[in-house]
């Protein structure tokens, strides 16, 4: 983790938060911050090695960062239990359908436009 690049990430987020509020875009600050950093990288024409490592360090444990919000389910156990049939069916079926539709449309159109697939997924993909 490079301190300079950690600061850069925070500065992008901060500017993103300000832009989000001033322009009332309805997008959260971090997403705008991501766009700002992306634009910066595109203008520079490459990712500095240290930034590559800093980002990798942070993203390696991305799923950890969702744990605190996930524990919030405990505040809604009662409500979820009351409507558990519609909620469970909706979440499971909708998630599977969304994955299937998105992937099928993308593969179908790539095929039509004559684009070659990128890398065969391993079995555990």
């Amino acid at each position, binding site marked *: 983790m490079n301190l300079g690049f950690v600061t850069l990430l925070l500065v992008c987020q901060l500017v993103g938060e300000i832009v989000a509020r001033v322009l009332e875009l309805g997008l959260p600050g971090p997403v705008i911050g991501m766009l700002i950093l992306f634009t910066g990288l595109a203008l520079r024409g490459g990712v500095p090695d240290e930034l590559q490592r800093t980002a990798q360090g942070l993203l390696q444990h991305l799923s950890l960062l969702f744990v605190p919000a996930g524990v919030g389910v405990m505040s809604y156990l009662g409500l979820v239990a009351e409507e558990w049939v519609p909620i469970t069916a909706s*979440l499971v079926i909708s998630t599977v359908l969304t994955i299937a539709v998105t992937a099928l449309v993308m593969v179908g159109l790539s095929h039509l436009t004559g684009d070659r697939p990128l890398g065969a997924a391993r079995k555990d993909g």
Partner: protein
Amino acid sequence: MEGELRQIWVYLAEQPLLGLTVTLVAYQAGQWVYRKAGMSPIANPVLLAVVALVALLWLTGTSYETYFEGAQFVHFLLGPATVALAVPLYNNLKHMRRAALPLTVALVAGTVTAASTAVGIAWLLGATERTLASLAPKSVTTPIAMGISEQIGGLPSLTAVFVILTGILGAVLTTWTLDALRIRDWRARGFAIGVAAHGIGTARALQLSEVAGAFASLAMGLNAVATAVLLPLLIRLLW
């Protein structure tokens, strides 16, 4: 002795240190099980950690608010991590340019499917209106989903719960779904999980392939924008 232990507990329970530490311990225990299980999607580390922590808080009678005093430090990192997603995105810019048209159409198809099937199925099975509105943005990354939910009459914090559950389900179900459909293109696999299961799906994709991870982060970002724009429109059309 009993009284002393109790005093230590009362002191620690009020400190952020405990909430932060148990979060890291639970997650690493989850990671350990996940690896032992050969990275099987069912042993999802977020799921394991959440279940363990909810059980722990329930057993010790600790409130979520007290726990979050410590866990907020982990939660905070979601912001800079979202910004950092620009890096894998940029690394894969070349692949994205080449697939611009399929990506755009797949995005709209996925966004509409996610919201309409979630609401449609729950409505058929008799969910309340508040639950329906809270379910609609469930495939979008947490902060945006909460904003959309508020806008359409849902309960933002309930939406946050649905978002996390969707992410975990996506990470668990994606491999089986895509293998059953015989989809082997890493770009499509990554993009589909990003549209359906936002950051948690992206985290799983990143562990399996950098290309899949980049397409997943792209999908997560685009889906957030597309849902924020399309959902209020869809609702106006249907009601």
